[in-house]
């Protein structure tokens, strides 16, 4: 076995393990940390494929930004963990029957076929080949239409989040000096003329 293949299987094993832990762990913080581990392993696989730009983007965007934010949210939410997972195992028989069936169906279909792990034909690029440049060039030429549309999707996300959460200006009790200066007596005081009442 080549060293590359060894590294691949090592990373893949960690990836599968971490992904399984993400869905089985009781503690959401631990689950999020395992997701980070899964991202790291996936990024290792991408580096093996010589896609270093995508690997770095994955780390920067998902691990650096999204997952850390996610961890903050999970920690802030203060979820009652035990109540969340109550009755989790009671779903096990049904869930396992369903998933076993799906797996069995897929195996039945695939087993009849020749099943061989083929060597991946990774392009053996020369050293001058730049991944970043290639991705950038494609993004702004061939894929400019979906790229621009993706930015519109993000814009809609911003508009939607603002529309759904902004509750107008908070009513603060701070004092506005300019309005204080301009206030007049009649703004504050109202004189009411009332008929005199006779006392019994």
């Amino acid at each position, binding site marked *: 076995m080549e060293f590359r293949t060894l590294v691949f299987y090592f990373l893949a094993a960690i990836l599968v393990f971490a992904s399984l832990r993400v869905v089985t762990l009781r503690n959401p913080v631990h689950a999020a940390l395992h997701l980070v581990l899964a991202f790291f392993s996936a990024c290792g696989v991408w580096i093996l494929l010589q896609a270093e730009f995508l690997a770095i983007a994955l780390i920067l965007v998902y691990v650096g930004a999204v997952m850390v934010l996610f961890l903050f949210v999970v920690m802030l939410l203060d979820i009652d963990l035990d109540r969340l997972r109550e009755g989790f195992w009671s779903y096990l028989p049904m869930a396992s029957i369903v998933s076993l069936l799906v797996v069995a169906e897929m195996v039945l*279909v*695939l087993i009849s*076929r020749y099943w061989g792990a083929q060597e991946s034909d990774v392009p053996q690029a020369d050293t001058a080949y730049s991944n970043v*440049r*290639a991705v950038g*060039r494609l993004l702004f*030429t*061939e*894929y*400019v*239409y*979906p790229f621009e*549309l*993706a930015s*519109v*999707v993000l*814009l*809609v*996300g911003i*508009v*939607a989040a*603002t*529309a*759904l959460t902004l509750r107008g200006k908070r009513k603060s009790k701070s004092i506005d000096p300019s309005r204080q200066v301009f206030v007049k007596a009649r703004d504050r005081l109202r004189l009411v003329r009332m008929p005199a009442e006779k006392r019994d």
Partner: protein
Amino acid sequence: MTLAEMQFAVPELRIASAEILLLAMACLILIVDLFVRDRNRTVTYLLTQLTLAGAALATFAVGTGQVSYTFSNMFVSDPMGDLLKLLVYISVIAVLFYSRAYVLDRPEMARGEFYVLGLFATLGMMVMISASHFLTVYIGIELLSLSLYAMVAMERSSAASTEAAMKYFVLGALASGLLLYGMSMLYGATGTLEIPALADRLFSGEVNDRIIVSFGLVFLIAGIAFKLGVVPFHMWIPDVYHGAPTAVTLFIASAPKLAACAVVIRVLVNGLIFVSSDWQMMLIILSVLSMAVGNFAAIAQTNIKRMLAYSAISHMGFMLLGMATGVIMGDPRFIVNAYSSSMFYVVTYVLASLGAFGTILLLARAGFESDEISDFAGLNKRNSWYAAIMMMMMFSMAGIPFFVGFFAKLSVLQAAVAGGHLWLAIVAVFFSLIGAYYYLRVVKVMYFDPPTSAAPIETTLDVKLLLSLNGLAVALIGIFPNALMMLCARSLSDSIVF
């Protein structure tokens, strides 16, 4: 190939001018709205309507009647797309007219975002309609769905609308996942995401694995079925239709159906026609189940929005019936007939749906939704013209001659019979008969029950005119259906390339 050799043709932007105009105007309106002091957002509203009219002009002016591609074959412009886009603009314009008073009565919705999100949703539909690449199909669907989720949730104080938005969002995300999974499998099998190239590879047999194609197809159809809302992927429809503010329900129930129909034609007919024997059976199952569940469940409803939701499920099932009978034993002669009758069906459904929800919006007031069937009691005594319009909509949906829905049902049925699926046609007629019961119940309530409210029905002149026009369209196209039918057939036969 080195980087220096990479050739890139600057995309022809003229073809996509309607999309570009709409996007630019949506961004502009977003900014203009910041400076609008008016609580009614009249400026935003008028600008939105003008933008839609402008986009319609652009689509009309640019359309050449030919199939042309741009943006590296990711965008296609053809007569079918142009026709559907024009219908989308018309229905969104009608939606905005109908929902104006409803929105003004509810301060949480009377904000600029309602119109801006509506425009973005329209852009999403346009992208879906002119998509010729799986990436653009997906992004169009996401753009539409994301805007709709937010619009459903806009009435923040209503628990029902928040719940509806949550259900819609979670199930929509699941459906997107299924769709993407299917697309990635097809990519793995054929090595392309371009829809015409996919058809070429399937035709020439340059496919790595036929089984992966079938697997991908299952996921793809499940994803599309989710978005269409057909059984067994229909669970979100009743809750979303019921929970969403009626103005948004009207939006969801009209134009997106046209875009979904376009996606089905683009993906299944343009891309996967050579594996049609695989997907036709799936569509037949989805179709029969939808007609059964939709029509039976609608009988039990007391809420008219929920009833129309189940009716939407059954109508989408009926539409799929036409889609499922295009190719018989590898013989593509019936393609144009079957798919154009499906398209005609969707157009007529959208027309009737606009009128029906428009009437519900007409009766709604501040703090009163008017969404129970009993709220329509004695409508004839309160205003006989509106009752007549609602009756025409119900008759059209039930498929009673001579309203437009009848000819739509008839043309789908004859496509099914021509495709050799006589039993399917019989099943469809049977379920339509069951469906007629709950449509006629609304008519009975309107004409024979005593009115529960004597409040006069007030509305603005534009809504009065548009609703009358809508009612007349359902009746007149019902008497002269040929023009619209021919338009659908011709645009489709000019657009499908083999």
